[in-house]
């Protein structure tokens, strides 16, 4: 009677349909690519103003050999995105093609601006038209769609829909285009050229502010998170503080920090020598780091908790100490989640550093707010575009690192 108990058949899992031949992402990617291809023609590539004071009006793209070739490349690129996205294995190439299409769009714009201004008044200014901006956004989103599909197939959830390949093509390409001088006729580039050193200094200052705030927040968050791992009340207090700070508007927090710091500097004038005062880098760095506490601490704690209880139990059973467990088990298994927290924090730091200009800390925000004050679109763009570029690049780089780490973390 040893076999009297009948074999219970395996649980019937819901029958899953095999993956459809055309990936789900194809529709959205193709739609966006089509939108990108048509928008510059519908809404205008360029707008021209006779001088700085009059408002710009859209003009049609002056067609000649260069612009014709560029526009043709751009439209072909968009078509390529739509076609390549129809095969799952080709999605990465669709993403790369979207990057190439963006470069063609930019080159066409630069050539078109040069032709439109040719022989015109020296004061005339050429700016990208609404069609250009929306087409660039559509291409970015289309690349994101391709990235979402590619990730689901191979690299797991970590990188999400971050278009790393798109940026890997577009960013060096844009640097090359700028260096080659194709874009020089654009008023934005003229503005950049006339403010060259100022822009460069602001960029460094911006990066320094963000990095300083990230370091300060790390100095607070890392020891507190390690302590909070075993003390639920400390954890509750830490997370309540970090969450509460998140709600305070950044502009208000910077303002509120000015008063006590000004007071400190008044009591101990020596502090001014270290740059601590009501105005300047100190309130900005402290204020920014306050907002980074939440992503950093949440990422760290969730990373430290990635190791399942039975693995920790087994490790303790083999005689590992808490230090060894941290080094050999918690850190390797949680690296992905911790990197995720760092990623969120780094992107927020770059964004918040823009507001630091309000309390006199400088950075790219100074250019943005100067532009807002003067209602000068070019100046705003000159400040904002590097912020956006920096955020996108940091996010994509850390997303790629996270994706590379994730499988190692899952093997445990």
């Amino acid at each position: 009677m040893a076999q009297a108990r009948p074999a219970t058949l395996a649980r019937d899992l819901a029958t899953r349909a095999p993956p459809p031949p055309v990936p789900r992402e194809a529709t959205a990617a193709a739609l966006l690519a089509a939108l990108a291809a048509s928008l510059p023609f519908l809404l205008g590539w360029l707008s021209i103003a006779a001088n700085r004071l009059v408002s710009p009006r859209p003009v049609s793209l002056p067609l000649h050999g260069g612009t014709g070739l560029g526009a043709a490349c751009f439209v072909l690129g968009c078509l390529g995105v739509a076609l390549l996205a129809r095969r799952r294995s080709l999605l990465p190439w669709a993403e790369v093609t979207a990057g190439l299409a963006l470069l063609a769009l930019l080159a066409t714009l630069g050539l078109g601006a040069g032709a439109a201004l040719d022989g015109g008044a020296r004061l005339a200014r050429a700016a990208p038209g609404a069609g250009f901006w929306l087409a660039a956004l559509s291409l970015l989103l289309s690349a994101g769609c391709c990235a979402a599909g590619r990730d689901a197939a191979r690299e797991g959830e970590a990188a999400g829909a971050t278009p790393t390949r798109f940026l890997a093509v577009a960013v060096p390409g844009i640097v090359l285009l700028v260096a080659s001088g194709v874009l020089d006729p654009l008023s934005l580039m003229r503005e950049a050229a006339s403010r060259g050193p100022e822009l460069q200094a602001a960029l460094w200052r911006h990066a320094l502010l963000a990095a300083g705030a990230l370091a300060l927040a790390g100095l607070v968050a890392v020891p507190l998170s390690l302590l909070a791992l075993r003390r639920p009340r400390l954890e509750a207090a830490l997370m309540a503080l970090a969450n509460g700070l998140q709600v305070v508007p950044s502009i208000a927090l910077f303002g509120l920090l000015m008063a006590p710091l000004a007071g400190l500097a008044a009591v101990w004038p020596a502090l001014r020598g270290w740059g601590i005062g009501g105005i300047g880098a100190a309130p900005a760095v402290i204020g920014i780091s306050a907002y980074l506490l939440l992503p950093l601490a949440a990422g760290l704690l969730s990373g430290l908790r990635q190791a399942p209880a039975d693995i920790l139990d087994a490790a303790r059973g083999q005689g590992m100490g808490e230090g060894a467990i941290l080094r050999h088990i918690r850190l390797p298994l949680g690296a992905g989640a911790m990197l995720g927290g760092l990623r969120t924090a780094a992107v927020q730091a770059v964004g918040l550093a823009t507001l630091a200009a309000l309390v006199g800390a400088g950075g790219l925000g100074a250019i943005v707010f100067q532009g807002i004050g003067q209602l000068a679109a070019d100046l705003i763009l000159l400040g904002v575009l590097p912020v956006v570029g920096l955020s996108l690049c940091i996010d994509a780089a850390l997303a790629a690192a996270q994706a590379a780490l994730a499988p190692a973390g899952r093997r445990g």
Partner: protein
Amino acid sequence: MRLPRRAVPLLAQAAAFLLALWAAPHLGALWGAPFPDVQRPVWDQRGWFALLGAHLMLSVGAVVIAAALGLGGGILATRGQGRLRPLLDALFALAQSVPPIAAIALALPLLGFGAAPTMLALVLYACLPVLRGTVAGLDGVAPAVLDAARGTGMGAARVLWQVELPLAAPVILSGLRVAVVLSIATAAVGAMAGAECLGTPIVVGLANNNGAYVLQGGLFTAWLALLADRALALLAR
């Protein structure tokens, strides 16, 4: 919903906030204390209640529109075979990697300056947390519950209205909460773009090197944001 006991401290805080707004012009000594060099520490260019009203019009108005758009978009995106989902994923990833300040600053040259464009930028940005909350909430409804609901013969609209939305409500509300806080905070930045609100004293104070104005504006903006957050947390329970 009857007024629960938990709402009492919130109402007390709101009353304290309004009282402080009323008392602010009479507290010159308090505002001036940390800034001895400032000649006129009391903000008197515009009434506090007018600023509060404008701030609420701007941020709450933006959130109401954003909530309608986000909820509708989220429901649409989760119907059918989810062909719009990759677009949403790409949008969320982009929104996560582009800071709100940058997005609003980018929108200004395209949309123009003043209260109306600030509002439009706020709507566009506040949409995203609501949209994300709606999609996450609807995704979180257990497939078995949906299967059972369809199996009992509920129509698609009834399943959405009686099963999916009630179950997704906590997640949608937390998205709404993020949108409200984001909107109140970012409306203050709108003062830079010419929208009058509680951020105006901050901007004016920074421009004229008047720390006392900044202190008052910062205090009331932060207080308002905390109050709104508490109120929505209460609603979400």
